[in-house]
């Protein structure tokens, strides 16, 4: 079980309010990603849940039990840290055994659990090594293994992939997703990388300046961003945001068009010049400088013949357009 509820959770450091009172529900077995730019409070929120920071006020309830005053180790949660935080003087096996030792698990039972976790994570060959003798990916797996053996109510991940190289990051991403499917345990995952959020999450919580901007499934956020912040944050390349006359024409203060919702056309649309063209084979990314609406990110399927300096005309798919009011909130049709 791992249903987590935050009621009016609030955190101040002195006079600075880091997290204004906030409510959130996380269902059992859900994979929740906290995403936001650095400094948005996502790590602090995770640490509040873990019990590593004191709340200023509010309550945290796990499986119906108020754990607001419980020590971190008593909340039934496991955490994977950005730096992995492996105990440098202990072997892989001893690292994984540590939480069990603290919980007073009988040795043979602990052995079984560790062996099982090691197998799941492909660590069986490295059990006697020290962390310093492992590669980055292996360390990451040990950190996860140490979390798994506790059979926690929920896993907390604090930017766990940011210290890995790009290729490894992709494969670890998949491994964690896979793990979540196998274990079906609640996972709360903090990242600043919206790609990780989109690919892994059941539910994304977008945070900005300690405030929840939107909660929803990846596609909900993508298709119906609640405000300009979410619109700009989710999606890569970024959504084009256009102000001024073009927006007013459509009854909005700002309009947003995702790069893939722009097409090149022979006539009409906005005229512009290609400033940059990236040919990936499967897609072509272009930056087009237009007179009317400024720089636009454009994404085309397949290979498109376009080079720096070419003159093109681009037009938005009107039905895919997002409209926002002066407060930055989404306008519903």
């Amino acid at each position, binding site marked *: 079980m791992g249903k987590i509820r935050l009621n009016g959770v609030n955190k101040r450091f002195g006079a600075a309010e880091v997290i204004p009172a906030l409510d959130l529900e996380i269902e059992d077995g859900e994979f929740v990603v906290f995403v936001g730019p650095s400094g948005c409070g996502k790590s602090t929120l995770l*640490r509040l849940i*873990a*019990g*590593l920071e004191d709340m200023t006020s509010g309550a945290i309830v796990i499986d119906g039990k108020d754990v607001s005053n419980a*020590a*971190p*180790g*008593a909340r039934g*949660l*496991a*955490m994977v*840290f*950005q*730096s992995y*935080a*492996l*105990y*440098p*003087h*202990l072997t892989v096996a001893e690292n994984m055994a*540590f*939480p069990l030792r*603290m*919980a007073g698990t009988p040795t043979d039972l602990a052995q079984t659990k560790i062996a099982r976790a090691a197998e799941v994570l492909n660590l069986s060959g490295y059990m006697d090594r020290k962390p310093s003798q492992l590669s980055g990916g292996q360390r990451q797996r040990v950190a996860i293994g*140490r979390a798994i053996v*506790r059979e926690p109510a929920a896993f907390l991940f604090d930017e766990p992939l940011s210290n890995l190289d790009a290729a490894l990051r992709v494969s670890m991403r998949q491994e964690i997703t896979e793990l979540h499917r196998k274990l079906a345990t609640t996972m709360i995952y903090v990242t600043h990388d919206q790609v990780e959020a989109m690919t892994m999450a059941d539910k994304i919580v977008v945070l900005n300046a300690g405030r929840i901007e939107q909660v929803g499934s990846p596609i909900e956020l993508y298709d119906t961003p609640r405000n300009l912040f979410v619109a700009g944050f989710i999606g890569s390349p970024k959504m084009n945001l256009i102000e001024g006359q073009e927006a007013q024409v459509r009854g909005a203060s700002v309009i947003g068009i995702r790069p893939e919702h722009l097409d090149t056309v022979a006539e009409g649309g906005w005229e512009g010049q290609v400033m940059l063209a990236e040919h990936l084979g499967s897609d072509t990314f272009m930056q087009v400088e237009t007179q009317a609406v400024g720089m636009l990110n454009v994404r085309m399927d397949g290979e498109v013949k376009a080079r720096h300096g070419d003159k093109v005309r681009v037009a938005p798919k009107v039905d895919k357009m997002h409209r926002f009011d002066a407060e930055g909130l989404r306008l519903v049709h």
Partner: protein
Amino acid sequence: MRDQSISFRVKRGIGIAMMLALLAFSLLPILWTLILALRPATHLFEPIWSSPTALTLDNIASIARSDFPRALLNSFITAGASTLLALLLGVPGAFALSKRRFSGKFMASWLLLLLRMAPPVGFVIPLFLFYVQAGLIDTHIGLIFAYTSLTLPFVVWSMWTSFNQIPNELVEAGLMDGASLWQVLRLIVLPAARPGLVAAGVLSFLLAWNDFFFALVITRSSTTTAPVAIMNFVSYASVDWGAIAVAAIALTLPTVPIIIIANKYIVQSLGGAVKG
């Protein structure tokens, strides 16, 4: 890309010559002390090369018979116990200073430094008068406490620096894994800070072992330490150089292996500290 030009070799040669000179500077006084220890009184004042075979073990034998070995034992007990006490009290304190959030860390570190730098000549008299009242004159426990005034600020200060190098995440991982703060300190942080612990222990032992002043003032016959006892060979009308040399060597023998073994840890622990 190895530069094997003549000028490179010359420079390297100069470098090696300089190192050899410095090595001689470090070692020759020790060698001289060894010679002095083995010379009979009649040949003490002539160069070793004019009578290289005039050697004796008498000086060693006379030291062995004197009160010096007991003073050496006193030094060991007091320096050792004070180090142990300083570690016992200071390590948890340093851990809290390093990992607990609170204002006034700067003041605390200044105070610790200040205590380490206070001139003993000023406060040894108040200490002495207090000890007389408390009946601590000429007791091991009194000297241990006095040494702790040196070793404890040092241990706290240097372990604080060591603990600052231990990532907070390691502490938090331990807490998440269900360990208490004390368990985190004992099972995770201390083993991870082992070089710092060894360095702090060794340097604090040396600090106490080195002391002359406290022992001079607050010990009497039964707890005299070796640095004071060595001065007993400077008597009314003569200085027993042979005995002094033997005593100096005896005083150094226990610490040399310690420092040789521990210098690696000192470098390691300082390495992190100076990197900040």
